[in-house]
């Protein structure tokens, strides 16, 4: 993080702390960084440990904190994808946006390239400078495959699954207290890899109109299954069929809930 961005971040968090009960942001750890709740009344408050990398699902953590501290108004240092996830959660009545203040961070060109991100910035930028989006080469490549080749591709990918549930656990827009993936009606117990296509296609179906493309599932997958490729194709289909893009506005109605 260069000096200028560090100063912008520090100033933005400092100002937010003056009017909010706390700010969720990353804090430097022995290796990397992790989410942390900064509070103005914390005796050990130190804004020199603020960090912007690596990426964690801030919306997921914030959702939990708003439940744990029902009186609190909290700020969150959010990339574009964190903001979209919060909007998606608010749309589904999981998060009250009146209790949330977003400190928007624009991703760098390198971060955008790493994430193959088409829109590497939030709606309002407090930290960093907007850069151009990057086309997702993996999705473009996949589109060139025949239907048969795609089926073979996903069968091969899903056969690697070790059923760690990491994709579900890290997903900022997965919030159901009872998950279909743990229900024996849908997913047979004790089989590894989970039988094709039930586990992964159930999850894919639940991602329609919901997945905001943060790619956390890909980052945490020990088997390196490129799940966002599948979810991006579904997002593009929903955009084409219904003109719907998840994460844009709390007032947009998810097509699988509203149109069918």
């Amino acid at each position, binding site marked *: 993080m260069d000096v200028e961005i560090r100063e912008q971040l520090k100033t933005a968090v400092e100002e937010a702390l003056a009017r909010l009960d706390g700010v*969720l942001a990353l804090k430097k750890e022995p290796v990397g960084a*992790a989410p942390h709740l900064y509070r103005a009344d914390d005796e050990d408050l130190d804004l020199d440990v603020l960090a912007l990398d690596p990426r964690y699902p801030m919306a997921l953590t914030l959702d939990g904190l708003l439940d*744990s501290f029902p009186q609190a108004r909290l700020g969150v240092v959010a990339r574009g994808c964190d903001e979209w996830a919060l909007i998606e959660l608010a749309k589904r009545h999981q998060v009250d946006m009146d209790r949330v203040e977003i400190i928007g961070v624009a991703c760098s060109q390198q971060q955008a390239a790493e994430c193959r991100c088409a829109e590497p910035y939030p709606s309002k930028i407090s930290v960093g400078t907007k850069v151009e989006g990057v086309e997702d080469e993996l999705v473009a490549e996949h589109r060139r495959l025949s239907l048969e080749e795609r089926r073979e591709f996903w069968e091969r990918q899903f056969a690697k699954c070790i059923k760690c549930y990491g994709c579900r656990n890290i997903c900022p827009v997965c919030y159901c207290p009872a998950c279909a993936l743990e229900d024996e009606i849908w997913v047979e117990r004790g089989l590894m890899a989970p039988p094709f296509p039930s586990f992964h296609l159930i999850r894919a179906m639940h991602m329609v109109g919901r997945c905001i493309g943060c790619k956390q599932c890909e980052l945490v997958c020990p088997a390196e299954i490129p799940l966002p490729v599948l979810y991006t194709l579904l997002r593009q289909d929903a955009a084409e069929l219904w003109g719907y893009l998840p994460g844009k506005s709390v007032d947009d109605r998810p097509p699988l809930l509203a149109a069918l």
Partner: protein
Amino acid sequence: MDYHSVQTTCPYCGVGCNLELQVVDGRLTGVLPAKGHPAGLGKLCIKGWNAHSFVHHPERLTQPLVKRMGQFRQVSWDEALARVSSRLMSIRGKHGPDSIGVLTSAKCTNEENYVLQKFARVVLGANNVDHCARL
């Protein structure tokens, strides 16, 4: 109102993936993978993802228990250790050191496992040392 992460090593196997324990007002609420850590590369298996779940579990044993007349009874650590020690010594005296085996655990640190094999070999005089990773 406190929330912070604690970076630590997963207790379940020898790979050494790192976790970020999620702590809300002094209680563990979950786990996130430690992103960028060289052992786990920010990924976890299903055990790592649930590594926090035993800590506040209502059925977790937090004190030594001794079974007498078919019933478990809470005892002090001193009493429990004295009992283990006297039983081990009496079994060894009666049947010899080879009648005793020691099972160590991947959940222990390297140093704890070292101490346990040392205990087996030097104190008990037994070479029967095995490990849960072979089960």
